[in-house]
């Protein structure tokens, strides 16, 4: 990609990857228990939580970005107390972008996980319990291995979707070159400033990356699908 992406654009590329990695890691840690709960619960809250998780799919990113700026800003419900504790500002910073990305990509991690947990059914868990396996043990030795396709899908989609997001990171991050500028916002800047060759380079890299990721996902899932 070195020939395609101009040297000045490596900073946004690195930041994009860092943001996507951190976001994906957080989403897997938070999304797995949430998905497990959604897949197993008989609570009446389930539909409400599912709808809330799915909101980022239908809302314009600007709406989410706007609320996040309000909440995380120096006078927001979260940003206010945060800054009064002496911690660095959340908006226009990397932590703020992570919070925005986690919320925005949440459905892409939670939905495939919920799906794959739900199709497991009770039987493998009952079998494991009858073989002296405790609830945690069952989760790690039976549920997670049997949910590999779902985990893989969740990981890849969360990562790729974070790499591909624009509106939320633009609003929460502020597109500050060298600090909060990611690939998608860098392309936007290049186009604004009529720097078409750079825009071409980054865009082509993004297309190649997205295709490659999806290709890997479908190949791997196709293989595990043939051998469930």
């Amino acid at each position, binding site marked *: 990609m070195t020939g395609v992406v101009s040297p000045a654009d490596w900073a946004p590329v690195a930041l994009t990857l860092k943001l996507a990695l951190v976001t994906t890691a957080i989403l897997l840690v938070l999304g797995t228990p949430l998905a497990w709960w959604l897949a197993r619960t008989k609570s009446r809250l389930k539909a409400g939580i599912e709808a809330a998780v799915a909101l980022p799919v239908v809302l314009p990113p600007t709406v989410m970005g706007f609320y996040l700026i309000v909440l995380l800003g120096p006078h927001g419900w979260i940003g206010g107390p945060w800054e009064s504790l002496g911690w660095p500002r959340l908006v226009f910073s990397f932590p703020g972008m992570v919070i925005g990305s986690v919320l925005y990509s949440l459905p892409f991690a939670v939905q495939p996980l919920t799906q794959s947990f739900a199709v497991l059914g009770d*039987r*493998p868990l*009952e*079998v*494991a*319990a*009858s*073989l*002296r*396996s*405790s*609830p945690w*043990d*069952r989760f790690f*030795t*039976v549920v997670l*291995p*049997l949910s*590999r396709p779902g985990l893989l899908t969740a990981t890849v989609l969360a990562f790729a979707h974070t790499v591909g997001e624009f509106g939320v990171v633009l609003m929460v991050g502020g597109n500050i070159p060298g600090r909060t500028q990611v690939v998608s916002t860098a392309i936007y800047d290049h186009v604004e400033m009529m720097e078409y060759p750079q825009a071409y380079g980054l865009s082509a890299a993004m297309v190649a990356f997205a295709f490659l990721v999806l290709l890997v996902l479908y190949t791997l899932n196709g293989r595990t699908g043939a*051998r*469930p």
Partner: protein
Amino acid sequence: MIWGTLRLVREGFSLDVRFDMPGQGLTALFGHSGSGKSTWLRCLGGLERGQGRVRIGDTCWQDDKVGIFVPAHRRPIGYVFQEASLFPHLNVRANLLYGWRRIDPQQRRVGLDEVVEWLGLSRLLARRPEGLSGGERQRVAIGRALLTSPELLLMDEPMAALDAEAKAEIMPYLEALHRRLSIPVIYVTHAVEEVARLADHMVQLRDGRVIAEGNALELLSGLHQQPAAGEEPGAVIEARIAAHDDVHHLTQLSLAGGLGLLAPRLASGEGGMVRVRIPAREVSLSLDVPQGSSILNILPGRIVATAEGDPGRVLVQLELEGVYGPGPRLLSRISRYSWDLLGLAEGMRVQAQVKSMGLARDDG
């Protein structure tokens, strides 16, 4: 001893049982689908929670009065499910060892090699469950349960999902469980043939209530038995294999009292014990020994009791009379017309003609 009470109410179904099952041998929970037998088993295994009390020997697994409920993974049970329950992500060896690894090494009374040899699994160890036949999978599932050195083995219709061939493959192993294991087995089934072949003790259920309970042979042969749906009343008798006749493809069985019975050629060797189920409709009665009959088995007996069967029919219980004393009891179902025509009555001597029989247990 496994005893207690269980109550469970579901939409359109309720289970309400008080039980006291022997601490050894195989107890069949028998009834049609929907009678609650599987739910009961699940409650015993801790997979489902009813209300009441479950005790095995001196150990309490559930007592709602004092708030005890031991979860499934802390109960020393082996559980064999109806359908393939092997973990698809593990090969046969890892499936077998899944439970074995999770018990205290000091409690392991059986090892992998022993189970593999007994169930004939050595060829399968490296294979994945998806490549196994139904019978092979069930053998692995049984081995996996036994490798946890359980104190109680629970089996939920382990043969119901198998075809006839696979059933024939599994049956000898289930029969051998008796002699191999000193632990009690509770076996859920709706098939009277399985009860006849396997059970020592039986509990019959209907609509979540116990309708009969006791020695399996006696219950299955009794005059007032409650036949399962689609099953005819009949008697189950135990016999010893006296000799095989390969020319005629027959096996000579010897019954109590010195009686003999010819059966279709059995697989077991001479001297082995078998159980034979003789449906009542396959037994007809005559006053004298019929001459020139094609029926192989004509046995002398005495009418001990009768019961009204379907309209126009009588169910007759006979005690066979051998040279050395009383033989086993048979059931015969004849028409009311024949009963009156022959002038039959309780206490009379008759000749029982056995037209055919089913093999119930072939102890190998």
